[in-house]
Every structure is written in structure tokens, then in C-alpha cells.
């Protein structure tokens, strides 16, 4: 088990290194180096060459990559062109918005998807099933940022219950901040919930016919107890996997939704960096998010091994 975790962890490190190398190499291959992005097209060749030298861009690719990676490992992600401050600090600051937003979204989608999915499985082909099937079809198809716009129209401009955007900052009060995050979290959660609901439904359906659920029923447990205590926990494995797989989409959704609601999160940071052509910030945000996705996949793998002992024996 320990050896297995260690091997997976080694794989994680290799993947992370490769991702960083690819991002770095691709950025280098593309036309327009950071120096010319900073100076714009009107700069003279001499100024350009001077800045390139100052930024170390005249060094070979491998040397620059190693220097950059060394910095990243020590928490030095380089400085933003536009803000003039370390990118690591910028990302860390913005995470205080993005992380609570993502957690809230995941919580909301689970809270919506699991009861709906279980109900749909219990009453297969009944009214619940038809309704939840329709719900999942619709929710998977709607863009999260559009849901955000609709929520603003309904709850902000029409009813005036919740703020249409902006973020007061955690110093201004937890309640106010949570209020500002609620609509964006709902917008993010809805498309997610559709996918999770489908997975929950089919997983519960499969588990309900297994021997251990029949045993639970046979020993006199009520249908409800048999379902929630025996069937649902075992059906959660695919749900957890799906959550991990959907993480990429959650991040993409967060980038868009943060822009709809004008939330100062990492996604908004990326967008601002794009419009200001702040390539260092862009590169670091992409590296950061990709690292997060890879880490998430690793954790899902681990969770798998912990939840399902059968897998421990079989895996290479």
C-alpha cells in the first residue's frame, strides 16, 4: 500500500515537471517573447535587446527553464509586469475568493445531486426519474456564466435580494462576503449537479441489486436504512471520481463566473492578465491550475484505494 502510494506520488511529480516544461516550451516557441510584449511593437531593436538581456531571455531555453523551475520550487513565480509584485502573492491573495467559491459550489452541487440521484434511482422510471432526467439534460447544457446572468436578472435587478457582483472582502464581514459568493456558487453548481446526479443515479441503481443490499433488507432493515446506510455509501465511489474529473470544468467555470460577478478571484486575475498581456501572470495561473487538476486526480486515485480495498490487490 505504502509502496503503491509512493509510486503514484512519483508519477505525480513527473507529470507536474512535464506540465511545467511544456508550458514553458510552448510559450517560448510562440511568436512574441515577453520582452516585446512589454515594450510593444514600437520599441527599437536596441531597447528590445537590452530588456531581453536583463530578463535573461538571451540564455538558452534549458538554462532559463531550470532557473524558472528553481524559482517556482522556492515559491518565486516571478514578478507581474503590470503590478510589479510577485505573482505568488497575487495568486495567494486571490485564492481567498476562489477557494471559498469553489468549495461552496461543490457543496451545493452535492447537496442537490445526491438526493435527486438517489430518489431517481429508487423510483426508476417514475415521475422523479423523469424530472431528474430532464433536469440533468438541461443543466449539463447551460453555460455556468449564463446561469450567472439569469440569477443576476432575477435576484439582483428584479428582486434586489442579493448583490449583482463585486466582493466586499472578508474584512467587511463574513455574512456580507458569503452573500456575494452565493449567486456565483449557484451558477457554478448547477451544471455540475446535472452530471453528478446522473452518476449517482446509475451508481445507486447498480448497487441496489448487489447481494449486500439484499442482505441488509433481508435482516429486516427498512428500505430507507438499507438504501442510505448500505447502498449509497458504496455508490459514492463513482461520484467521487466524477467530482475529480469535473474539477477541470469547475476551474474553467470559475474563470467565467468570476468575470460575470466581478469577483476578485484567480480567474478574474487571469482575465486581467490577458487584457494587459501580462504573460508571467498568465503562465503562472495556468501552471497553478494545471497543478491543482493533477493533484486532484492523484487524490481521487488515493481515495479510490482507501474506499475500495479490492483495488489494492489488483493494481500494478
Amino acid at each position, binding site marked *: 500500500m505504502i509502496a503503491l502510494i509512493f509510486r503514484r506520488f512519483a508519477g505525480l511529480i513527473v507529470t507536474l515537471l512535464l506540465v511545467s516544461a511544456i508550458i514553458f516550451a510552448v510559450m517560448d516557441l510562440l511568436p512574441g517573447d515577453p520582452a516585446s510584449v512589454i515594450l510593444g511593437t514600437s520599441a527599437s531593436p536596441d531597447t528590445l535587446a537590452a530588456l531581453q538581456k536583463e530578463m535573461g531571455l538571451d540564455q538558452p531555453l534549458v538554462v532559463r527553464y531550470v532557473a524558472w523551475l528553481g524559482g517556482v520550487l522556492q515559491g518565486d513565480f516571478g514578478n507581474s509586469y503590470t503590478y510589479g509584485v510577485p505573482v505568488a502573492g497575487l495568486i495567494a491573495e486571490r485564492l481567498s475568493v476562489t477557494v471559498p467559491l469553489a468549495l461552496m459550489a461543490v457543496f451545493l452541487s452535492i447537496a442537490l445531486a445526491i438526493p435527486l440521484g438517489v430518489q431517481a434511482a429508487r423510483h426508476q422510471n417514475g415521475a422523479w426519474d423523469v424530472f431528474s432526467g430532464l433536469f440533468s439534460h438541461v443543466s449539463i447544457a447551460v453555460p455556468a456564466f449564463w446561469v450567472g446572468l439569469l440569477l443576476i436578472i432575477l435576484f439582483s435587478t428584479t428582486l434586489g435580494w442579493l448583490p449583482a457582483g463585486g466582493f466586499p472582502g472578508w474584512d467587511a464581514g463574513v455574512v456580507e462576503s458569503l452573500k456575494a459568493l452565493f449567486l456565483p456558487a449557484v451558477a457554478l453548481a448547477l451544471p455540475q449537479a446535472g452530471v453528478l446526479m446522473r452518476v449517482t443515479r446509475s451508481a445507486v441503481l447498480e448497487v441496489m441489486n448487489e447481494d449486500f443490499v439484499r442482505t441488509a433488507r433481508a435482516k429486516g432493515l427498512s428500505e430507507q436504512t438499507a438504501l442510505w446506510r448500505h447502498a449509497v455509501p458504496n455508490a459514492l465511489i463513482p461520484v467521487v471520481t466524477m467530482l475529480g474529473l469535473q474539477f477541470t470544468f469547475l476551474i474553467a467555470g470559475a474563470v467565467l463566473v468570476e468575470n460575470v460577478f466581478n469577483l476578485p478571484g484567480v480567474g478574474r486575475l487571469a482575465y486581467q492578465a*490577458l487584457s494587459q498581456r501580462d504573460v508571467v501572470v498568465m503562465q503562472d495561473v495556468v501552471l497553478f491550475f494545471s497543478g491543482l487538476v493533477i493533484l486532484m486526480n492523484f487524490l481521487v486515485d488515493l481515495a479510490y484505494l482507501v474506499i475500495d480495498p479490492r483495488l489494492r490487490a489488483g493494481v500494478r
Partner: protein
Amino acid sequence: MTFLMRRPTFSIGLVITLTLIAIALVSLVWTPMSPTKMQIVHKLKPPLAQGFLGTDQFGRDVASMLMVGAWNSLSTSLLAVAIGATLGTGVGVIVAAIRGVTETIVMRVCDIIFAVPPILSAMLLGAFIGSGRFTAIIAIAVFMVPVFARLTLGAARQIWTRDYVTAAIGMGRNRAKITVVHVLPNIANQIIVQVTIQLGLAILTEAGLSFLGLGMPLGAPTWGRMLSDAQTFLGQAPWLALLPGLAIALAVMGLNMLGDGLRDLLDPRDQT
């Protein structure tokens, strides 16, 4: 025909998708008004007051913009998925024929590409080479490659274990020929289903990219850009935000339903 009756999802998906394609094609030769002509006197008119679906902040005809948007969205997504599916399928079948270390390496690379959300890679590309249709297509296509590579590798591996392939190997056929004659035709159905579903995903991503200003060039109407413009007028003109989103959701839903239906239709084992 009986199939269409028994599978309402498939039929609905088919109708939505065909309608969408028809609208996109018609927009190439005819729209009720010019989608780009501005008439400030008629700005922000609600549906039916001016034109069929109202006008935007510049007095442009929303119905015409939606029609052209259908073409822009569909053609961009189709190109991206076509590139991604071709490359991914190619990689998948070749790796399935070679196996060994190549397989491990290719799958690792797929994991890596898959880890970068297409919105972010498009933003990264946009910061360097500028935004535009090309950036959007590349970003979506790159994301599609591992999706199709994984699918085809898995499917092709199964075909390689079949008796008729073993027989072909025994008869001395080389691996390239077996791939073309046996493997590709037998996994084609799964690829078609996946193309349909990924098209829906590509439309969603494309909408997100144009929402951020990373898609088609300025002035070309896209559903995503219409939504991004509508943000300023949410209180005065909610239909501007309602209609393009509805178009996106319908298109994606239609393609997903069609994909689900095709899966049932093309996989005879699954029919109950």
C-alpha cells in the same frame, strides 16, 4: 422509424440539431436584417417591437445576429472537434498497434494536456499570439485530442484481442493493414457518438471564449459575445441575455440527446 418512436430523446436531439444546422446554413445567404447594421433610433427594442426578437444597444437585429451566431459557433466548434478527433483517433489507433512503452508515454502526455482547461490555454495563447478564431480552434482542438486518444486506444485494444485479428496476424497481415481493415471500421461508431457529444462541449467552450473576447474577431456576431455585451443592460433589456444563452443551451442539449440516441442506435448489444 420504429426506433425514432421508441427513442424520443434521439428524435428531439435530431430535430434540434438539424434545425440548428439549417439556420446556420440559411444565415450564409439570408437573414431578416443585416446582423451588423446599426440603427441607433431602434436601440434596445424588446422582441416583436422591432424585428422578430428585438434589437441590441446599437439597434442591430437580434434575430439576424443569432442566426449568424449559429453559423460562427457551429463552424468553429466543428473545425475544432474535427481536428481534435482526427489527431486523437490517429494517435489512439497507432498506439494500440504499437503498445509497449509508447503507450505509457502517450497516455501520460494525454493526462497532462487534459489537465489544462481549454479556457486557460486559450487565454495563454491569446496573451501571446492575440485572440481570434484560430486561437479558439487550437485551444479546443488540443483539449479534444486526449479525449479521442483515450477512447480509441481503449476501444482499439479490445479489437486487437478479437479472434479475427489473431487470424489476420496469423495470415501475415501487417499491423498497419489490420488497423485500417479491422480496427478503424469497428470503432467508428464509438467515435461518431463521441464527436456528437464533444461538439456540444466545444460549443459551450467556444461560447465561453467569445464571452471573454477570445473568439471570433470584433464585429462578427457570436452567441458568447452577445452575452458579454448584454451584461451592461441586464436591467433594461434582459432578453439580450436570455436569447443567446437559450440558443447555446438548446444547441448543446440537442447534440447531447443526439449523442445518447446514437449510442443506443449504434451499439446493438445495449438495446433492450
